[in-house]
């Protein structure tokens, strides 16, 4: 799984809610595993509430270009520093 930190994105969470986007290509194994792992990590490590937006790249395919996604699955944190593995 790759993760992208986008400092250019507008800050949407002022009340310390972590807003995360997980990009995946349909329901592949890697996406499902990634999603499960992410939930697990968030429950343990994150202090505040979080929001995971799972986006299927196949449905609106232009999103891959707009959000500069090349790898799958990719997690984009909208207002956080990149996570270390």
């Amino acid at each position, binding site marked *: 799984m790759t993760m*992208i930190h986008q400092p250019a994105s507008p800050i949407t969470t002022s009340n310390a809610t972590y807003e995360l986007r997980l990009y995946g290509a349909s329901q592949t194994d890697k996406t499902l595993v990634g999603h499960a792992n992410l939930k697990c990590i968030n429950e343990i490590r994150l202090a505040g509430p979080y929001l995971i937006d799972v986006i299927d790249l196949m449905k609106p395919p232009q999103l891959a270009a707009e959000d500069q996604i*090349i790898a799958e699955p990719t997690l984009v944190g909208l207002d956080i520093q990149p996570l270390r593995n």
Partner: protein
Amino acid sequence: MAQLSKAPTGIKGLDEITGGGLPAGRPTLICGAAGCGKTMLAMEFLVRGATEFGEPGVFMMFEENAEELTANVRSLGFDLNKLAEQKSILLDYVHVERSEIEQTGAYDLEGLFIRLGHAIDSIAAKRVVLDTIEALFAGLPDQAVLRAELRRLFRWLKERGITAVITGEKGEATITRYGLEEYVADCVIILDQRIADQICTRRLRVVKYRGTSHGTNEYPFIISERGFSVLPITSLQLDHEASPARVPTGIPRLDEMLGGKGVFRGSSVLVSGSSGTGKSSIGAKFIDDACRRGESALLFTYEESSAQIVRNMRSIGIDLEPWVNDGLLQIHASRPTLQGLEQHLVMMHDAVNAFHPSVVAVDPISNLTLERDDSQVKATLMRLIDFLKHQQITTLFTSLNSGGDATLEDSQMGVSSLMDTWLLLRNVEFNGERNRTIYVLKSRGMAHSNQVREFVLSDDGIDLVDVYVGADRVLTGTARVAQEAHERVAAEVGRQDHQRKLLQLAGKRKAIEAQILALQVEAESETAAVDLAIAQQALHDRNTLQSTRAMEQLRGGDTVRNGQGKEI
């Protein structure tokens, strides 16, 4: 077996080298060091595909963004914004920034596939450029994943029947830095940029082309405002047509020396001589005459600027300016040291292709070859000459011979064997002055004069005059004029002498005639005397006979008989 189908690049020289273009439906790798023109080549392939062959294309870039690229290729005359609006080209900038990416666990590049697939579908693209996919190696740390994914990407492109161009940076020991050639094995083209004597020459080589024959040499190319241009390999064939039509040289007496009609159309003429022998003037006259006939002409000059040529040629009555203004004549003036010989030739090639002239003059070709290896020069010149012959363009090259008179016939480039007609100009120094002479050293396929002519430049233009060839020497200039005057006097004296002799002879004859008359008169009087004598004798005889008979009668004797007993 069916020929491998090819996607033409629209870059003329390249299509000739590859026998029709890049392999259709397969990926091609273009690699080279930084700044050697990889992106330009890839872009031209895409733009020409969209504009000339009706094949839309996707340009996926990893290093520059769309705005930067659009600005960069505008200098080549490509308007990407317009093409993007027409949906014939799609630019897609993939942003990969190592510092923004963390990786964990398993992942693949499906996102890129989806993205490319979507771009291809949205304009029904047939061509794809990935410039340069190596940026992924820098952006994504896991090379094992990347390599597996690249393999999948190229297979996927092949399955979709996409003609792809992948650019790659030149590596230390390998063709590309990250070994892309392992994945893209159908066609590999290397671009190279080399400096020799501080002059840079760009070269292109097709290293590999599966399933087809291709030119394997290095071919020089340039990137100009008309885009990419590769000097093609027409010299591999020697099959150009030979026209029987003749082109006058602009100097009537010279045409006279060349079988009365000038040189063959599409042939090459070399005018060589040391400095100041009038080579450029012959070139200018040739150009001027072509324009006068309404044919277009192209003049490459490496010594004088175009304004200087126009001014200087006016002094011998050749005005080139109207032709330039009418668009019949184009003058390309540049310094030979501007670029290497190959690049000059590519440039000439380009100019000829754009202008389609019927005659070309290069003044002088020797400047292009300064301090160059002869064999290389010959090969490149041969390409140019063959190309011009193929186009049925009559070409005049001037060449400066350095050194003394002894080496005049040594064409310093060894190109004389490539020339159909060779005019040699030489200075004759004699009697305190220097005069120009011209002769036809060779002219293939026509009877040509073996005479040396004096070559005279005046306000009225160029003219050729017979030289004085005496018993022991050739005279030119004032010596010739003096000799001619001398001969005129001598001829006059001779004529008068002859007249006098004739008169003398006539008098003598008349005297003889008078003598003949006198003798005739004498003869006639002699004849008369003879007649008189005969008559007198006869009269005498008759009288004698009569008196004898009278006596006989008087005597009454016998009849006197003669010897036969007959009566008289």
